[in-house]
């Protein structure tokens, strides 16, 4: 088929009708691989997951679709705290990536000169090693005899670390003197792992921002802070929205950080689903939790995108 399309111009000119039909087919033809992929690897599994969540039974005797809606209420009442914790951890990590990522993206886009490409490579450099290894590395950083402790001892700044710990304890982010295996460690891991997903869309957006607009704002009596608030921030919203979504959605479902850097007090919903599927073998509960998580993320995202009002932007 593709060959026929390619060879068409060389034959005598086909009638207008034939050409019209052929042209109408091309978009569908181009869409087909993607659509088939989505159908096989997204639509079918989603439906099977939906059906699974309403089945009863066990692994040995098999599952039967019984429209058992109670699985949902049971799952929610047992695991609501892990669901909520996932949203909170992902939310905090997203805010932190935005806080760290925005100045970094601005710097790379407008202040780095000839170092621009090098810095961009540095941003994506962590992807050259596996997610697992990168997260494990945080154990050696935050551990009781880890890099952070060594560094503060070497530079005689242990008091800084102690002060930091006191703040974290006050915020309830660490329980005792240990940095590792705490909410702080999990959120740090999430923030670190998802930072590139924030920086790259922000960079793409800020790089296109016309700096002459900031000159115009300054010319019209806007202080640097006002220029940021009235011109740069609103114009960068599409990048902010893209970055936060790319960070928040996968971070909510992430469980590696919680497994490697957290404790039983920091269990996230991904861990629960993983356990239900692979260890407890309670497939309906696992499927129901997956659906609840999906619904939660979609509703958070819809409200967020509406509030950000990016559809009004050019």
């Amino acid at each position: 088929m593709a060959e026929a399309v390619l060879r068409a111009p060389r034959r005598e000119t086909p009638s207008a009708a034939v050409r019209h039909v052929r042209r109408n087919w091309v978009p569908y033809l181009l869409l087909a691989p993607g659509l088939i992929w989505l159908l096989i690897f997204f639509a079918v599994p989603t439906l099977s997951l939906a059906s699974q969540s309403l089945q009863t039974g066990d692994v040995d005797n098999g599952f039967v679709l019984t429209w058992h809606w109670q699985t949902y209420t049971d799952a929610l009442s047992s695991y609501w705290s892990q669901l909520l914790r996932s949203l909170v951890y992902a939310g905090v990590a997203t805010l932190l990536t935005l806080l760290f990522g925005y100045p970094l993206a601005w710097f790379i886009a407008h202040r780095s000169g000839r170092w621009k490409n090098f810095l961009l490579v540095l941003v994506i450099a962590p992807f050259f090693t596996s997610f697992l290894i990168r997260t494990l590395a945080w154990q050696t950083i935050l551990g009781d005899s880890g890099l952070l402790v060594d560094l503060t001892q070497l530079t005689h700044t242990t008091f800084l670390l102690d002060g930091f710990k006191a703040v974290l304890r006050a915020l309830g982010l660490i329980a005792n003197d240990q940095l590792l295996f705490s909410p702080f460690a999990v959120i740090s891991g999430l923030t670190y792992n998802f930072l590139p997903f924030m920086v790259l869309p922000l960079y793409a957006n800020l790089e296109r921002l016309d700096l002459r607009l900031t000159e115009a704002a300054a010319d019209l009596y806007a202080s640097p802070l006002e220029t940021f608030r009235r011109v740069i921030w609103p114009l960068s919203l599409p990048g902010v929205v893209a970055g936060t979504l790319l960070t928040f959605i996968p971070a909510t479902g992430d469980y590696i950080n919680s497994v490697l850097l957290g404790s039983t007090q920091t269990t996230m919903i991904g861990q629960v689903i993983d356990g239900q599927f692979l260890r407890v073998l309670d497939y309906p509960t696992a499927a129901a939790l997956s659906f609840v998580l999906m619904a939660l993320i979609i509703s958070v995202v819809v409200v967020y995108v509406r509030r950000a009002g990016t559809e009004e932007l050019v």
Partner: protein
Amino acid sequence: MATSGAGDLRIAGVTKTFESFTAVDDIDLDIPRGSFFALLGPSGCGKTTTLRMVAGLDAPTRGSILIGDRDITTLKPHQRNVNTVFQSYALFPHLDVLDNVAFGLRRRGDKDWKTKTHEALELVQLGHISGKKPAQLSGGMQQRVALARALVNRPDVLLLDEPLGALDLKLRRQMQIELKRIQSEVGLTFVHVTHDQEEAMTMADSIAVMNAGKVEQLGDCATLYEHPTSAFVANFLGQSNLLKVAILGSADDGLVPAATHGTALSISAEHLPPGATEVWLGVRPEKLHLGVGGGPNRLEGMVTDASFTGVATQYLVRMPWGQELTVTQPNDGSGRARVGDNVTLSWSPRQGFILPASEAADAGTEVEGG
């Protein structure tokens, strides 16, 4: 606020260097309050850099900038009561026309911003489109929004950086007249940067012609045109025929006997440097007449080109020594010459200007085409 700091704009000994390149070289300008002033020059002459230093977007390497008695050299752009109409307009794409125009007033906390914004939009005849985004407007409309956005703040000095450059010719003419009207209506000091000599002459009360970071000549349009003091100004503002002239005697009744390539002429003694034996005599193309009716100075030559431009016909006439003179004749019904005709050119002794013989006759010509 608009009147408290107002006064003449003074640029005193300002120099701006970028690494090894000197963009603006020790210029001094006094721009009277309420005047329409043009900085004219080819691209790269330093006019835009001068403007940006007045706006505060670039800092001078040396020198100072004052409005009235107030030194604003070190003030940040948002602290200066100076506004700019940018070449690119730089309208905020996320704000509608009303919010764009109101931007400056609201940053300064002006309680009356709504009324003033609407007045400014009426002034540029855009009251009906206040709810639109810049991207929905034509180039001419965007230009007027940019103008309103600057005007509405009633700055001490309003800077215009080639604001009409992106418009087509007809719209540009229209906007030139409109800008001039608005300026005389609001009475603000306008400093207009342009490379278009016609635009500068149409609008400005006085013009500073800049070249290579320096002010070549400063004056009103007529003076610059009739009595340029350098070949650069003579060639940059309109066309000039420059003839090498030997001075043969002393002044008599304001006229001096002279000769060019063996032809006797008489020239006005008014601007002649004392003791000069050789000078350039400049004669504008429209001051030369085909035939003998123009005055006692006469040259013979052959027409090599004739182009009809509507109100006038422009001829190239080759002199016996090879130089081609440009002659512009109004199409007023008088006789026309054809290519190949031998003609006499004549002009009156007082209709020329004198340049020192040391000037390069072609200075400023190569940029005129752009």
